[in-house]
């Protein structure tokens, strides 16, 4: 555990989506009886983590492992099915929209697609000024404009461009504007849901550097969702590796890259292409990610894990702290056989 003050605590978070349609679709005829049958996608299955003040916690994992669902649930866009989310010790997951309002100023979000995250019918100035006015009703018009101007400068957008519409900007510029929008309410915590994956590689670095620079200037804390491991190495203080809706390893970036412990993390890291690729063969996992509709029993990874035994097939492993500060959810590690 980090010794620093913990900003956000996520405990045993679960989210499932009903995919069985409306009531009539759920009725099925089975063995001479009409049965109501419901199916769920288990997007998150008991996720635990803390975000400490000032750090950038990266969440990595392949598509469909629930990274974005975690981000959206933390921000209150989705209601969790179970578990709790606390911000500075206060539970926020069950609050009403009005009660959540003070937290909206402190927690903001940056979205994946800069082409969809700005309202096409609002000019940049309108987009940026609206949140300021909304959260600071006592501010005068001049103060609002001053705040917006300052934020626009800080993300590298000329305030003179404010009269334009989003379609007049490139992807990178739009993402800067999205960042500016999040910064207008002066948050202390930002959830970034794959903020650079829709951008050109050449622009990715710029936006990433901008985010690191604002982190320093404004003392921000990030929860950074990504599937790009090189970004994690560059950006993250700590890393949470997710697989099928669970966190399988949570460690400081350096520790994780130097010494991955969980078999899935090991396989994931071995898949990064390197220039000096003279290492032994990549770890090849057998099979595919199981469907989140019918979760495997026990450890979600057991079907593909070369070290799985009977205990792995029956018992769900918990995140257990290791001597070097990392946390791993693996029976093999716990028993010391790996």
């Amino acid at each position, binding site marked *: 555990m980090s010794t620093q003050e913990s900003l956000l605590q996520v405990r045993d978070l679960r989210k499932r989506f009903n995919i069985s349609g409306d009531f009539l679709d759920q009725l099925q005829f089975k063995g001479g009886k009409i049965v109501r049958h419901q199916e769920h996608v288990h997007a998150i299955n008991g996720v635990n983590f803390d975000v400490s003040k000032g750090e950038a916690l990266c969440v990595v994992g392949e598509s469909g492992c629930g990274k974005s669902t975690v981000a959206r649930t933390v921000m*209150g866009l989705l209601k969790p099915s179970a578990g709790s989310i606390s911000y500075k010790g206060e539970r926020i997951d069950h609050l009403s929209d009005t009660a959540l309002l003070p937290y909206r*100023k402190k927690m903001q979000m940056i979205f994946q*697609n800069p082409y*969809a*995250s700005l309202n096409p*019918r609002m000019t940049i100035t309108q987009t940026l000024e609206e949140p300021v006015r909304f959260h600071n009703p006592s501010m005068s018009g001049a103060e609002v404009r001053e705040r917006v101007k300052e934020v626009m400068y800080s993300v590298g957008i000329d305030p003179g461009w404010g*009269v334009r519409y989003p379609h007049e900007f490139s992807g990178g510029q739009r993402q800067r504007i*999205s960042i500016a929008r999040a910064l207008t309410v002066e948050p202390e915590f930002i959830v970034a849901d794959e903020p650079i994956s829709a951008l050109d590689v050449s622009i990715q670095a710029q936006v990433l550097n901008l985010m690191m620079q604002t982190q320093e200037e404004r003392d921000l804390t990030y929860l950074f969702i990504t599937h790009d491991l090189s970004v994690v190495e560059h950006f993250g203080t700590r890393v949470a590796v997710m697989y099928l809706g669970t966190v399988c390893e949570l460690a400081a970036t350096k520790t994780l890259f130097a010494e991955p412990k969980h078999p899935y993390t090991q396989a994931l890291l071995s898949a990064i292409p390197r220039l000096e690729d003279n290492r032994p063969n990549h770890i090849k996992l057998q099979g595919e990610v199981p469907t989140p509709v019918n979760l495997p029993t026990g450890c979600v990874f057991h079907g593909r894990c070369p070290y799985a035994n009977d205990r792995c097939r029956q018992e769900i492993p918990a995140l257990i702290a290791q001597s070097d500060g990392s946390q791993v959810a693996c029976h093999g590690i716990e028993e010391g056989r790996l």
Partner: protein
Amino acid sequence: MNTQTLEQRPTAWERFKASHFLHSFRTDKVAIISFSVFLFFALAALFAPLIAPYDPYDPAMIDIMDSEIAPAWSEEGDERFALGTDAQGRDMLSTILYGTRVSLMIGICAVLMQAFLGVVIGLAAGYFGGRVDSILMRIADVQLSFSTMMVAIVVLALFQAAFGAELYAKLAIFMLIMVIGIAEWPQYARTVRASVLAEKHKEYVDAARVMGFKSRRIMWRHILPNTLSPILVISTVQVANAIISEASLSFLGLGMPVSEPSLGSLISSGFAYIFSGSWWITVIPGVVLVLLVLVMNLLGDWLRDVLNPKLYKG
């Protein structure tokens, strides 16, 4: 430097002059002709009291001896009355001008009413979804399953029977607007709901929710402006439809009274004289009505093509 960039920005008018919208209007002859015809009728209706040689609402200016005079260009014509007179001796030109005014006003006000009801209900249904959506859309289905004319005939006939023709004559405009407005709102509600369903999953709506904005603000300030083009398109067609509905109701004797005729009641009042040779009382307002509705439909088609080239050109 900032002021410089600001000055370089084109004004709204300059942007409009350079827009695709204006360009496609200029290159489309049908659109230009339709728009000029519509503008002609609209201006004529708006300035009817200034243009019309007589006031058809003023009984003192009507002489029964002038009744059924043919248009000025025919042999029996009288040059005082360019388009002839009707059975009561009213100047047809003035009456048509005032009638167009009444028809257009009913059409536009009824559509404003439809649009208001439809947008509010459609936004709520699309944005909140779930049970709210099901209930509102089932109400819309029920409303749609009754034809506009049937609802209007029943309501107006009952009103006339219950409160007498005299009170009805006073309230006719208001009643027609209400009935046509209420009967056709599902058109808007469905269109708006469909657009809202498409918009509400876009990230800018999530961004607005993360900002803590209230549902009402998100619906009206963020989603509604993005659904405006389909609303604009159906509005043109709906005004034409409302004018036709009003004309049909007037023709059936449930619309505007004879003393304040709309185009429909003019056509209806002249219908009795068509076999006695006074064709102009029916035909001339009929032509005006057909033209008005036709150009509005053509404009609506053009607008639909311009605003949504992907969906409809094919």
